[in-house]
Every structure is written in structure tokens, then in C-alpha cells.
């Protein structure tokens, strides 16, 4: 009985924002703009990644990137390059690096750093000390990007 509730507790934890297993934003190691190991130690879920990609309060990647895979969605932005075939152009580790902190790969980019929680100026209080996406959400987005292949 004791054991069972312990396991249930762990399950609840890992569904939450940050699990103890996650590599925290400050501890992330970049290797030429790439991050080699998963931030959660696990592979992400591409379906969740697609939702985060279009959600205006999460990734909102569609604000800046066209994505033919989401043709049914209105209003694709054109600030960044179209992401069609991006899963062929970049490796998993590079995509993880670009999503976590694009400035490591593209120093002066307008693209936000989605897994960084310090170094911002005048952040709104409710976002203070927080990253835009959790480690799990970054992994989900990376898993989704890897499905975008040149057909």
C-alpha cells in the first residue's frame, strides 16, 4: 500500500511542470548551439509538440514560421524561415538547442529563447524566473519538428 502511493506520487510529479529529473535551464550544456541529451531523459511526444507549436501562449511558433503541415491553421507568420523539412536540415540535438536558446545558434535573432529563465530585462512579474516552455514541452516540440521531413 505504501509503495503504491509512492508510485502514484511520482507519476503526478512527472506530469507537472518541472520534474526533479529535468536538466534545469541554468545547467543546460550547449555544444556549438546544440544540446546533445534530452532535457527530461526521455523522448518527447510529437502530437503534444504540434499543439504547443500553434498555441499562442506557449510556443506560438506559427507567429513567425510558415508550416505546410498546419495548412488548416490560419495566419502563418513570415518573420522566420518556413519550417517545412526542418527535420532533415537539422539534427535532434541541434533542434533542441535552437528551441531552448536560439541565440546560441543565431546570435542576434528575434526568436525567443524558450528554455531560459534568467537574464531578461523588465520581465512581467508573473513570468519572472520562469522559462516560456518546460523541459517536457521543449522535448515535445523537438519530437514534432523531427516529423517535418522533405516529402
Amino acid at each position, binding site marked *: 500500500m505504501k509503495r503504491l502511493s509512492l508510485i502514484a506520487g511520482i507519476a503526478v510529479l512527472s506530469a507537472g511542470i518541472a520534474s526533479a529529473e529535468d536538466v534545469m535551464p541554468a545547467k543546460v550544456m550547449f555544444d556549438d548551439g546544440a544540446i546533445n541529451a534530452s532535457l527530461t531523459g526521455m523522448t518527447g511526444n510529437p502530437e503534444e509538440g504540434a499543439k504547443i507549436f500553434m498555441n499562442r501562449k506557449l510556443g506560438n511558433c506559427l507567429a*513567425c514560421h510558415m508550416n505546410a503541415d498546419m495548412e488548416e491553421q490560419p*495566419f502563418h*507568420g513570415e*518573420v522566420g524561415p518556413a519550417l517545412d523539412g526542418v527535420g532533415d536540415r537539422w539534427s535532434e540535438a541541434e533542434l533542441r538547442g535552437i528551441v531552448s536558446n536560439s541565440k546560441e545558434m543565431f546570435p542576434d535573432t*528575434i526568436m*525567443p529563447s524558450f528554455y531560459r529563465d534568467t537574464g531578461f*530585462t523588465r520581465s*512581467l512579474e508573473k513570468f519572472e524566473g520562469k522559462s*516560456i516552455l518546460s523541459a517536457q514541452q521543449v522535448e515535445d516540440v523537438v519530437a514534432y519538428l523531427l516529423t517535418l521531413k522533405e516529402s
Partner: protein
Amino acid sequence: MRTLLASVGIAALALSGAASAGEDAVLSVDGEVFVTEAAAPDHLENVDTIYSGWVFRTDETQELQLDDFDNPSFIFLDQALDTWETVDGSEGKSCASCHDDVEDFAGLKSTLPRVENGELVTLTNLVNECRTERMGAEAWKYSGADMSAMTALIAHQSRGMAMSVAIDGDAAPFFEKGKELYYTRVGQLDMACANCHEDNYGNMIRADHLSQGQTNGFPLYRLKNAKINTTHGRFKGCMSNIRATPFKEGSPEFKALELYVASRGNGLSVETPAVRN
């Protein structure tokens, strides 16, 4: 018969001319043509041509600005004209008690903000100075309804005149401060005004067509909230969108930013009251 047909034809042409809008459309109201595209002022380092925000709006939004009867702003300007003649404060005076005609303010908006005795002064500051110092009335809230409408009415008197804000002499330190703010990244999204309005004007950002973020049309009517919006109100909105804590309306930071941004539009026509989405 012939001449009649011909003149009907011309009338139809003129009509369709007036109603047509678009990226290369001409902004003209009552036959007065506005400068919506001009060579960038010399102090701009990264931009060759400046454009009014009107150029980037949809045909439908553009058209609302082509005819004052269609422009929803004028309801608010009429209200401001009533306020102009309304007595307020301990001195028993209205604006009209001292100022003959609001038309006398032609040429004011195009040169503001400006420096007086070492202080940067906006149109809002000038109006509130009259209220508190000369009428014995309460200051209006910086972007409140009364102030937005009154500053729009006063700015409207400069419509068609070229923006011409001074940036040298006394104004230089404020210009430098505003410029620094314009290029400083802020908020959790870590962006500067320049990232959107200098590097990406003309591009779609989700459903929005990015303009150069010019202020020549302010105060202006927005379809989004169906009221007159001020420059500082817009700055605040843009900062919140990038998850940054906005500076306060009327703060030294926003006043310096207003001076700098206004000077980036030197050469464009004042459009107040413009219409935006």
C-alpha cells in the same frame, strides 16, 4: 447626352478612386494628399524609406480613413469640442476662455514632444499644465478618455503637416535615451522595438502586418477597442505583448521614447485622427 455620359463616367472614376485602397494606394482626404512614404531622415542608420502605418493596413481599415464621415474618431473629436467650451476648475474658465480657436494649435503636434526649460514636454503635459496651473482643475489621467479626445482634437489641427520633431540642442539627451530604449531587448520574449518595427516591417507576425511603428497618426481610433488610443498606450501594449513590464504612461522613459519614435517619422504627414485595427 454625350457630355452627360462623360461626366457621369468621370464621377464614377473619381468615386472608385476615393474608395480604393491597398499597398500602393494614395491616402487622400477631401482632395488633400498625405505623405505616407518618404526618404528616411538622416539620423536613421538602418532604414532608407519611412512609411506611415496606414500603408500596412487592410483595404477595409484604410478606407475608413479616406472620408471623415466614415472615420469613427470624429465622434470623439466632437465630444472634445464640447469639453473645450465647458467651464471646469476653481477659476471658472474653459479652454475657450483663453484660447480663441482650437485651430490656432496648427503646427503643434508635428513638433512635439519638445524641450522647455530642460524638461521634455508632450501635448498631454501642455494640456494638463493649463488645467492645473491656469484653470484650477484636476489633471486629466494621462490616457483617459477626456485627455485622449482633447489631444486628438488638438493634434488634428496639424493634419497634413510634415512631422518635424527637433532632436538636437536641448533635445539631444532625450533623443539618445529614447534611442537606447528603442534598441534594448526587454521582457521574457527578449525583443526590442527595432526587432519588429525596423527589422521586420512588411512581414506578417501571425495575423498582424508589421508596420514601422510610426506615431504620425496618433492619437488614433482602433477598431480593436473602439476608442481613441494614445502613443503611450500603444507603447504599453507592445511591451506587454513581449511580456515586459511597461513603463508608466507619462514616465520619463516613454516621453523620451515618444520623442525618438516621432523623429523616426520626420517627413511623414500628420494623420490624426488615423484609423487602425
